[in-house]
């Protein structure tokens, strides 16, 4: 038992190094996905037929592909044309993938806000863009927080996939530790614990964000079921 404890103490710094990388990957791709998602989501609802069509194509293809497959395809495509280090290429690939899911979250939230808010905004003279920025998006943002926190948690889990690209995140480090200490259960178990704690932190953090920005006396109309693919189709 004490031998295990000793090993544990030694491997924790290594795993934490990996944890930093994992969090980096997760947050960066989440942010990239957010921008893409906003852009594509708005394009899908308010854009012309052509833009809308492209948006739907992008969303459908990404959502029908396993995350690891799209990671590989995007990673190799990006690497062929742009000279990026594997870490950034991986982040970009995950971000593009996340964008598809986040755009659906955006779309759902915007549709939940409802047409009548847009009508009212236009009726006091706002242009479409003003209405979207000042009236629709602030409300959509609140509605989107629960499914978005689901996506954030999912991104953390997806960050483990960059293991396959030899990026030194938690799982890679755990494997290294497992190989050198010959204690795989301990190594991977510890990795799992770290993931679990991070996941817990994300959920808690976003829950309190939701409470903070809540519109008084209004219920969150959006009911989500925390599905694997972070969205019930």
């Amino acid at each position, binding site marked *: 038992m004490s031998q295990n404890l000793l090993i544990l103490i030694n491997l924790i710094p290594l795993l934490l190094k990996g944890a930093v990388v994992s969090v980096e990957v997760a947050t960066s791709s989440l942010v990239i996905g957010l921008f893409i998602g906003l852009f594509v989501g708005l394009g899908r609802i308010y854009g012309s037929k052509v833009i809308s069509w492209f948006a739907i194509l992008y969303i459908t293809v990404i959502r029908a592909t*396993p*995350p*690891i497959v799209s990671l590989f395809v995007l990673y190799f495509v990006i690497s062929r044309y742009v000279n990026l280090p594997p870490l950034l290429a991986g982040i970009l690939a995950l971000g593009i993938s996340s964008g598809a899911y986040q755009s659906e979250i955006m779309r759902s939230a915007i*549709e939940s806000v409802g047409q009548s808010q847009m009508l009212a905004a236009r009726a006091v003279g706002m242009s479409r863009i003003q209405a979207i920025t000042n009236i629709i998006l602030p409300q959509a943002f609140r509605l989107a927080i629960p499914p978005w926190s689901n996506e954030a948690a999912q991104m953390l889990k997806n960050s483990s996939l960059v293991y396959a690209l030899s990026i030194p995140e938690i*799982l890679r480090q755990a494997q290294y530790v497992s190989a050198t200490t010959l204690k795989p*259960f301990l190594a*991977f178990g510890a990795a799992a614990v770290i993931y679990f704690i991070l996941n817990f932190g994300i959920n808690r953090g976003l829950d309190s964000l939701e409470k903070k920005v809540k519109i008084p006396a209004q219920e969150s109309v959006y009911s989500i079921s925390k*599905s694997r693919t972070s969205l019930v189709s």
Partner: protein
Amino acid sequence: MEELIFLYTRYVPEFIEGTKTTLWLTGISLLVGFIIGLPIALARIYGGGWIRKLVIGYVEVFRGTPLLVQLFIIYYGLPEFGITLSQTASAIVSLGLNSAAYQAEYFRGAIQAIDSGQIIAARAVGMSHIKAIRYVVLPQAFRLVIPAWSNEAIGLLKASAVVFLIAMPDLMAKAKIIAGRYFSPIESYLAVAVAYILLVLFLSIFLSFVERRVKIPGLEIETAR
């Protein structure tokens, strides 16, 4: 483009093999997930004290950690305790346990969505609590859970792709092999991506069909929009 078509025609047998593996792996894991997931959902709703806590813990752990990590723990970690599972067994066990956690939550949602009045009415005609659940609640819950469950089936199909990392010969593994021989990773993985998209498409259509066949008019979960 022509290379893609060439790839397809030349490597058809590999693709078929990989697809078969992916499909039956998904199917069995889904089944395992169901067999474990339903009791878990029931335990969570109707169980008491420590059973409930245990079950909640199970669900939180398996949904709060990456599938890949679970896979590695089972394949690489268990042998430390003398439990050595083959790739196939490890894949099935980890996919199954993981899916069970998600399925349990869907079942729980569906069961809880059914009016408590249903149970009261069932008791009023003399059924025991267990009979009420079995003959009144569950049949309705099954109809309600189908959309979410279909989603899980598709999700599991996609999630299963990672098992190539423990050398399971699924579609992704074939892609890696082809990429090695053919020297062009982009085309190989793209081809596999297309294959997965087609699989997902067919599975979706099939599941929609089933959903429509078993539908009871008026019995739907209201997705608050």
